Each structure stands twice: as structure tokens, then as C-alpha cells.
């Protein structure tokens, strides 16, 4: 039944100067699968996501998306990225553009839609995520939660087959976290394939099909949320989860 995995990472290595951030990552996501990456800051979660959409060139290994190796020579990176959405911790909305312009820019320029078509699609998405009344506002006028939802809509407007979420709630005030997590839950329920770096353990437990614990550039342990959170096999995982519990984040 299952076709080629949505994404396959094989032996990913990545260094910044002398610092080896990723030391051989192997990971495959099936279609519609939601995988959460957990681990301490600096464990390589963000770097891994940035390698998947080729924002960071990898030193060794392969990334295969829907059966096609995107890290091969001569691949059109722009075309690859159109199929992979990413949402950043700091939103990275375009401050000189309105919400609607933020969402329609890439569909118009990279998918070749007309202004009207792009706006129609954008309005459908903005409506779905309760943002349509903000379409003419500039990002600075929105709350952090609204900005992050716009950033998600902007990524979705490219109709990606895969969505990468890089600690999308870490920059938010606590009371604004829920509205963003709700959006992601809805996407998961809709079958979106997602690779999520997160510190929200409750959310990971709730939404993920599988959780991977990253430690010093390797996937030290992975499993179902229940297994990993309740009975971690590795001592490092246990220590990490204990620190999270002690910090009141779980």
C-alpha cells in the first residue's frame, strides 16, 4: 500500500566550521506522517530542517523527496522549495507587505498565478484560519500568534507536500501558543506531512505519529509518543525529559 516515503534523509552530515552539528541523520517520513524532533537547544533540530529544504547545503548524505534526490547536482532548488513549506521561529514575515501581499507573493512569482487568482486562494486560506479580516494589515499590527498563523498560511499558499515547522511557538507569549498549535493540529488532521522541531512536549505527544530525540547531531532514540515519553530507553532521553518536567513544560 505505502508508496515511496514522502521524505528520506540518509546519512546527513553538516558542519559549521569546526562544529559538526549533524553527525549522520537517517530518517524517513511516510505520506501524512507527523514527526516531532525534540532535544536540547543546539542538538541540531533547526539545522536539520534547514537542510531538508536546502537552505543549508549538506556536507554528506542524501535527501530524497517523493522518490527524487533533491541533493543531487543540477537539481533546481527553487522548484524543490516550492513543494516544501517552512515556518520559522521568528515568523520572518515581510514587514513592508500586507498580510495578503505576504501570502500572495510566492504564488504569483513562483507559481505564476495572476494577482486575482492568488488573492482568491489566499482569501480561502485566510478565511479558514480566521485571518481574513487582517488581510490588509501590515505584520507589525498583528499579535505574535496572528503573525505566526499568517506565516503558516504563507507557506500553505504554495501548496507544499511537506511542511517543516521550526519551533514555531518559541517566540510567542504563553497565551498565544494555543492558537498556533490548534492550526497545526488541524493541518495534521487534514493529512499534511510534517516535520516539527518543538519544545512543546504536550503538543508533540498529542499530534505526532513519531517522536525523535536528537542529541549532539544524532537521532539517539525514536518511537511513538507514548513509548518515548513514558518509557524512554536511553538514559540521555530520560535526563532530557526530566529537565523538561522540572522546568514545568510538561
Amino acid at each position: 500500500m505505502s508508496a515511496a516515503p514522502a521524505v528520506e534523509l540518509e546519512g546527513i552530515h553538516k558542519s559549521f566550521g569546526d562544529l559538526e552539528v549533524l553527525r549522520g541523520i537517517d530518517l524517513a517520513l511516510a505520506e501524512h506522517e507527523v514527526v516531532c524532533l525534540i532535544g536540547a537547544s543546539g542538538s541540531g533540530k533547526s539545522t536539520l530542517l534547514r537542510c531538508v529544504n536546502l537552505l543549508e547545503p549538506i556536507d554528506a548524505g542524501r535527501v530524497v523527496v517523493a522518490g527524487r534526490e533533491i541533493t543531487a547536482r543540477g537539481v533546481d532548488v527553487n522548484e524543490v522549495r516550492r513543494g516544501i513549506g517552512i515556518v520559522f521561529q521568528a515568523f520572518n514575515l515581510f514587514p513592508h507587505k500586507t498580510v495578503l501581499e505576504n501570502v500572495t507573493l510566492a504564488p504569483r512569482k513562483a507559481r505564476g498565478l495572476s494577482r486575482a487568482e492568488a488573492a482568491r486562494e489566499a482569501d480561502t486560506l485566510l478565511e479558514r484560519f480566521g485571518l481574513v479580516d487582517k488581510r490588509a494589515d501590515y505584520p507589525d499590527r498583528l499579535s505574535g500568534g496572528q503573525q505566526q498563523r499568517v506565516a503558516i498560511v504563507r507557506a500553505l499558499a504554495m501548496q507544499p507536500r511537506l511542511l517543516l515547522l521550526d519551533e514555531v511557538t518559541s517566540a510567542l507569549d504563553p497565551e498565544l501558543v494555543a492558537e498556533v498549535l490548534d492550526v497545526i493540529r488541524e493541518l495534521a488532521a487534514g493529512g499534511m506531512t510534517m516535520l516539527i522541531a518543538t519544545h512543546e512536549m504536550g503538543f508533540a505527544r498529542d499530534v505526532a505519529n513519531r517522536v525523535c530525540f536528537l542529541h549532539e547531531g544524532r537521532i539517539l532514540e525514536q518511537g511513538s509518543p507514548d513509548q518515548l515519553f513514558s518509557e524512554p530507553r536511553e538514559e540521555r532521553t530520560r535526563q532530557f525529559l526530566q529537565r523538561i518536567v522540572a522546568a514545568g513544560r510538561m
Partner: protein
Amino acid sequence: MVSTLVVVGTIVLVATQSPGWDAFEEYFLNWGYYRDSFGEIARAFLVNVRIFVTVEAIVLVTALLLAILRSLPGPVFFPVRALAVVYVDFFRGVPTILVILMLGQGIPALQLSWLPTDQIFWASVALVLVYTAYVSEVYRAGIESVHPSQEAAARSLGLTRAQSLRHVVVPQAVRRVIPPLLNDFIGLQKDTALVSVLGIVEVLRQTQIDQSATFNGTYYLVAATLFVLVTIPLARFTDWLVARDRRRQQAGRLA
């Protein structure tokens, strides 16, 4: 307010009580000469206006292109970046008046019939060369001030490098550098007086002609008036642009 009045009052008092005041007033502040020469000098000033409007329009584009060339990443573009650096170093380092003299006298001296010989043309080319160097540095500062995460966001949506520059990086960079850009343009407007060294009858040359005909210096005041008349509206326009942008993007900002 009071202190300003005191200072200005003191200066006026000292000047008007000075032993040479009457001669000074006769030489520089002669209302009759001012009124009679204004039309003629203003017509000569139109030459300056034509030069700076043309040069500004061209520099806005060429300086941006140069700045973009200089910010191209990677070893492939090293020769391009190096050339851009040499260009900027040279034309910022050489006094503008020398560039005007070299082009304005040098190129017609080549006697190449297919090249324009118009002095205003070559003076304008000299100003374009010099101000492209200055203004490209302003643009470059603006481009570098846009956080790399903006380009990362644009590129990860599938936009090409050129599209990211065009739609995301450059618009933000230009908004940030409008005040220093205007500063350079005011400098350019004043530097159009330098083209008089080629014998072009523009505002400065005209005042010199008038001055040597009557031995009166009031014409300089006429020329000064004309320059100030064009820079003040430009400065207010820039203030308005900056304020409008700030209003649009930040009004009602949530705490």
C-alpha cells in the same frame, strides 16, 4: 526660542555695527541688483536643474545595480565584486571637479566624431560616475541591514535569488536609506555648480559673468536663494515619505 532670538539678534547687531557694514551691504545685499538679475540667473539655474534631475534619475538605477553586484555572494562573483570595489574606491576618492575636467576636456580632445561633444553631456556623465559610487554605498548599507532571515524566508518559498532581491530585500533596503539618499542628492544638486569649470553657462557661471560686469556680489545671494528653494521642498518630501512609511507599518502596533 528666546535663546535663538538672542543669538540671532547678537549676530545681526555685531554685523550691522561693524565698520565695513555699509560697504558689505552695498556689495552683497543690493535689492536693485537682486530683483533685476533674478530672472536671468534663474534661467541659468534651469541648466543645473536639468543636469541634476537627469543625473539623479540615472544614478538611482545605476547605483542600485552596482550595490547589487557588490553584494553577490560566492567565489564565482569575486571578479565582479572586486571591480565594483575598485570603481567605488576610485570615484569616491577623486575630487568631483577633476572628474568633470577630465571628461569634459579630455573626451572632446579625442576628436572621435561619433562621440557627443556636448559639454553638458560629459559633465553629466562625470556626475553620474561619481554619484553612482557614493549612492551605491548607501544602497549597500541598506541591503546589508535587511536581516538574512528575510531572504531565507523568500528563498524557502521558492523565489529565485533575483526575485527575493526584487520583491523582499531591495524594497526594505530602499525604504531605510531614503534619508541618506536624499542627503547625497542635495550634495549632487550643489555639485552641479562645478560644471561651470567647463565654461558651461549655468547658475554659477552666470553669476560670475554678472558680478564681473557690475562688480556687485548680490548675484551670489540670488544663486544661493535658488539652490535653497529646490532643496527645502525635497527635504520636506523625504520627511513625509519616511513618516508615511512609519505610519503605515507601525501605527496601532500592539505592545
